[in-house]
């Protein structure tokens, strides 16, 4: 009943936009990485030079190290902690939906505002240090000390993201048949036993999904660092994408920046693949 020309008339504008802003850039990202494009000089093909330069560049190695460190700090917490919260807010208790809304709200906060809020929380005389002083921990310059800056940024990321993944897990929890819990209760299982033996195996696909999504998120993060620390101090919070951003738009080394971003893309693909192997051993 529809003709091919109908299909193409609907697709024409969307495809043009996709071509300009998705398809061409995807290919151009790879193409640019083999050039010395820097806005001013004529473009020259430099082969693998950018890639060779990247692996010899101590700044890039540091940025890659920072990114992996940030990922290892953030992803395990963002995979596990929201499960606990989801289980807690999935109970039928009065006022429980208000907690869901409160936990979700930080997801909606712009990164600029987040940076402002947390710079003060992590200030030397900020609230974090005040609470820590009760544990006998002295003043820490969270954001001005290279060894603590990533911990602080990871904390902010968890603060902003756990409500998002909480909702993902809630969606998964609602698919768990109630009879299974009842069976477990009859066998004398405690609240947490019930969840370890029944919930966790059943929401495994969602755990996998959250692992992948939060991994990608961690490897792509840079606006939080850009707004909170500008990558400092001493480049201790310069992530790989922040380096791409700085190389491309501050130094205008767009060819080199493209090579870095492409390496990063490959790394993300490999990690996603490894995640899949680990978590997907049993068929769903």
């Amino acid at each position, binding site marked *: *009943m*529809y003709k091919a020309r*109908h*299909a*193409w008339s609907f*697709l024409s*504008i*969307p495809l043009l*936009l*996709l071509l*300009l*802003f*998705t*398809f*061409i*850039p*995807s290919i*151009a*990202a790879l193409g640019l990485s083999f050039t010395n494009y820097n806005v001013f000089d004529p473009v020259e093909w430099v082969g693998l030079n950018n890639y060779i330069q990247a692996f010899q560049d101590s700044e890039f190695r540091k940025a890659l190290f920072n990114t992996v460190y940030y990922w290892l700090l953030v992803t395990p917490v963002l995979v596990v902690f929201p499960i606990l919260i989801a289980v*807690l807010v999935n109970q039928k*208790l009065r006022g*429980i939906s208000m*907690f*869901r809304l409160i*936990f*979700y*709200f930080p997801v*909606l*906060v*712009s*990164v*600029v*505002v987040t940076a*402002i*809020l947390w710079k*003060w*929380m992590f200030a*030397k*005389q*900020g*609230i974090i240090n*005040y609470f820590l002083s009760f544990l006998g921990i002295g003043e820490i310059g969270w954001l001005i000390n290279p060894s603590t800056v990533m911990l602080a940024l990871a904390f902010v990321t968890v603060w902003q993201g756990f409500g*998002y993944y909480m*909702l993902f897990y*809630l969606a*998964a929890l609602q698919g768990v048949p109630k009879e299974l819990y009842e069976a477990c209760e009859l066998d004398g299982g405690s609240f947490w036993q019930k969840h370890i033996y029944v919930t966790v195996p059943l929401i495994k696909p*969602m755990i996998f999904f959250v692992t992948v*999504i939060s991994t990608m998120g961690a*490897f*792509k993060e*840079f*606006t939080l660092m850009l*707004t909170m620390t500008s990558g400092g101090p001493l480049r201790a919070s310069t992530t790989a*994408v922040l380096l*791409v951003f700085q190389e*491309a738009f501050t130094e205008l080394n767009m060819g080199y920046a493209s090579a870095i*971003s492409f390496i*990063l*893309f490959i790394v993300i*693909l490999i990690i996603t693949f490894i995640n899949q192997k680990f978590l997907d051993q049993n068929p769903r």
Partner: protein
Amino acid sequence: MAQTAIENNIKMSNKDGYGKKKLLRAGGTYLLLLIVTCITIIPFLWTMSTSLKGEKDTIFSVPPQLIPTDITFSNFVQVWNSLPIPMYLLNTLILTFFGVVLPLIFCSLAAFPLARMNFKGKNLIFMMIIATMMIPNEVTMIPVYLVIDKLGLMGSYAGVIVPGAITAFGIFLMRQGFIEIPKEIEESAIIDGANVWQIFWRLLFPMLRPMLGVLAILSFIASWNNFLWPLLVLDDPNSYPITLGLYQLQGAFSANTRLIAAGAIIALLPVMIVFIIFQRFFIEAAYSSSVKG
């Protein structure tokens, strides 16, 4: 509030008998949730309090002073007067409007033939769209910037809006919506002599409402908070959205914590209001992006 909730639970548990354990668990749940709530809202409360603090209140002190004694709205007045806040908000509104409406239109336009028509090349196009979902935006950031530049869109709102005007995820979502509509719907319309655009616009598009809602919410969050593209594309401070204005404010007034706090609260309020009004839709949007993503 927690108090009454616990009391309520006592009543409930007394009724169904196995009381004590359940009550203990409810208490434990509330305790844990309250701790997490505190961690979640303390940064907001502290900023709120700072924005209301007058000259006599200290900002950084040990112990921190959470409740201002010298409450004043002068910080808000000062920020509102010294910065073009109403203009920033209006700019954000314009950018957000197009950032929400354009994806709704373009994604459904693309999804309609992909879901309900048969034509040569359909699978290839769909595969290409799905494949680009694997490529993070950060990887294509540089070429997209160059395309915007080559099209002469630097400095314009079009340059900010257009990279997000159509997304692979949005097409995917809308396609699901179209697939769920039964086939018979169009057949009767065609017999009635409706043309293909009428079928799309009058018949099917309104039926997509739940999916459109999901995409609208997701686009709203993305556009309201869009920081990267305004930063890269816009050069005239008068065209800045609130995020970028605030970023600038942070540099300009970095010594004046009270003013920055007031600016942050002004930027937060609209999101908070929209969230409170449409809370159900926000939660549903997040659910469906978890199921369908």
